């Protein structure tokens, strides 16, 4: 598995391979596809950003983070509330705190503030949550989501609560989403191969052993938590400015399952895994969505089926856990696979070092 490449080589090679594939798809879709396809592709890239963000923490630390969508919500609503024009806000949230209804920021400033706020909250929650291990930590992470969701739902003056927060300026183009995705791929891969990433992965596999080797397990977990949450909140910002309208339920359990399924299907240990998982699931969902709408098949009008996509996501998760718990790619990044194939084709043993075990 470890073919002796340096971390830099792995990072650069791996990122390059993935970015190339994504770039190609991103450039081809508007040429070959319809406007609906472009929208699907944009959504795909945003989901990818969130999944990769999640991978940075979950994949490397081994801790289930069920609350990650909270940061999508924070990013989305912060940016939405700051960037939406005053005219609209006077109507929708006239009594907003901090005088928000009285000013509007440009998209980039708003997004930046959203990012900074998310990092702050991530830092505080990260320290609190990573005092725990395993399941209690997962429950704590989930609590963050519930707290954020409840807050968004009930801070009527700021968010309009359950009612739609609309006319958010549309800023997210396919190209923007794609470029951000490429950046995130590079960051995710860099993190994985970095010293912190390595230490984190060591702590995932054996926390006690890692501690005795001088790894400050809490520190590395908090670092990855903050990085992860920051990226996820960027996904939220892009979501807000793609949909143009928000309500708190957009950032609750439905999207949690979707992103988790994408992460688990492809394999959470790698950066390539989520990309594969996201691709497969997006395609699969589009197919089932046609079904859910009640297409006319063989002259029979099938009824609308709510929840069919989610149903399939659940089935996917259960089947993956039964048959391939490590995900389709397991521990292997695309570049690892590529190198192994290359070596085999050239008749060489894929592993630089192989020993017989005595």
């Amino acid at each position, binding site marked *: 598995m470890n073919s002796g490449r340096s971390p830099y080589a792995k990072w650069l090679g791996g990122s390059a391979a993935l970015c190339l594939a994504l770039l190609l798809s991103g450039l081809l879709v508007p040429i070959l596809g319809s406007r609906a396809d472009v929208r699907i592709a944009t959504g795909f890239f945003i989901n990818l950003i969130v999944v990769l963000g999640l991978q940075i923490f979950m994949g490397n630390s081994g801790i289930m983070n069920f609350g990650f969508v909270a940061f999508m919500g924070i990013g989305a609503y912060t940016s939405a509330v700051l960037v939406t024009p005053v005219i609209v806000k006077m109507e929708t949230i006239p009594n907003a705190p901090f005088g928000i209804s009285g000013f509007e920021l440009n998209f980039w400033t708003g997004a930046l503030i959203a990012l900074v706020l998310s990092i702050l909250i991530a830092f505080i929650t990260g320290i609190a949550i990573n005092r725990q291990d395993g399941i209690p930590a997962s429950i704590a992470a989930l609590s963050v989501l519930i707290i954020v969701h409840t807050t968004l739902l009930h801070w009527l003056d700021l968010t309009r609560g359950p009612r739609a927060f609309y006319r958010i300026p549309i800023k997210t183009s396919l190209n923007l989403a794609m470029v951000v995705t490429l950046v995130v791929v590079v960051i995710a891969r860099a993190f994985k191969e970095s010293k912190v990433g390595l230490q984190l992965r060591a702590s995932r596999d054996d926390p006690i052993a890692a501690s005795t080797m001088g790894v400050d397990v809490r520190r590395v977990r908090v670092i990855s938590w903050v990085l992860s949450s920051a990226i996820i909140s960027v996904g939220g910002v892009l979501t807000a400015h793609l949909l143009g309208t928000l309500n708190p339920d957009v950032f609750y359990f439905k999207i949690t399952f979707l992103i988790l399924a994408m992460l688990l299907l492809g394999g959470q240990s790698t950066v390539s895994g989520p990309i594969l998982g996201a691709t497969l699931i997006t395609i699969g969902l589009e197919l089932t969505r046609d079904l859910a709408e009640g297409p006319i098949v063989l002259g029979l009008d099938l009824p609308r089926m709510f929840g069919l996509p989610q149903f399939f996501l659940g089935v996917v*998760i259960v089947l993956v856990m*039964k048959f391939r*718990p490590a995900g389709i790619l397991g521990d292997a990044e695309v570049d690892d696979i590529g190198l192994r194939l290359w070596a085999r084709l050239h008749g060489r043993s894929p592993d630089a070092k192989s020993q017989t075990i005595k």
Partner: protein
Amino acid sequence: MNLVVQQAINALSIGALYALLALGLAMVFSVMGLVNFAHGELITITGFAMLGFEALGLPMAAILPLGVLVSTLAAVLMERVAFRPVRGAPGTTMLLTSFGVSIVIQNFFLLTVEPKPRAVGTPAWFRTRISVGSLTIQTLQILTALATVAALLVLVLVLRRTTTGLAMRAAAERFDVVRLMGIRADRVVTAAFAVSGFLAGIAAVFIISKRGAVDPFMGFIPVIKAFVATVLGGFGSLPGAVIGGLFLGVIEVTLDVYLGPSLEGFRDAFVFLVVGGLLVIRPQGLLGVRARVTT
């Protein structure tokens, strides 16, 4: 003073329900190491079953115990179909499987029934109130408390006096050694699930009677709270689950009282904040033992 007693009764009756749910979770976890996210769907399944029985014209007196039976059977079925295949897998794999199962069940109901909440009949006398001195207590609350105590007693008897219970306690410590003594692992796990289903069924019947309606996603928040209760009480401990559940009920009702009407909606947020804060101070929970892995 009256207010305190009144609210104490509220807290206990809510806490009792959390305790029942938390205990079911703890039972399965202690025997199998599985954190069962799909436990909340037992409530949903019970609810829709009750709806079905009502449609069939069965009397209330039959519907309630049948509901508990359905929950017990559903739990056993869940184990057989979804969890037996992944038994022995690492904890996170099993947890994610249960997550998947939960989604499947929720959306199954969504597909086959409408997403809107459907009203369920409850016995009229559930809604009566009794006056004791200057206190007014809902009959439902008394019944909840009684049923919980009864269920706990039955559980303790089963665990301490029956061989199956003995096997369950042993399996919670060392599953493989139990098998080495010729005791069927399958039966022990099935028994644990049956118990968890039974407890969930009792809680479900009361939750549904209180709500008066069922919907496909009704199990989700209760199971999260049940989890929080187990962690609060000390993860993996059966008495801890009960204590945690009661304590959570107390926290909720206290916040209900002290949060003014403007902050009412934020109640759940505050509950989790308080719980989160408690866990930061004492990660092992009330009855738990700290395993130091992180410095």
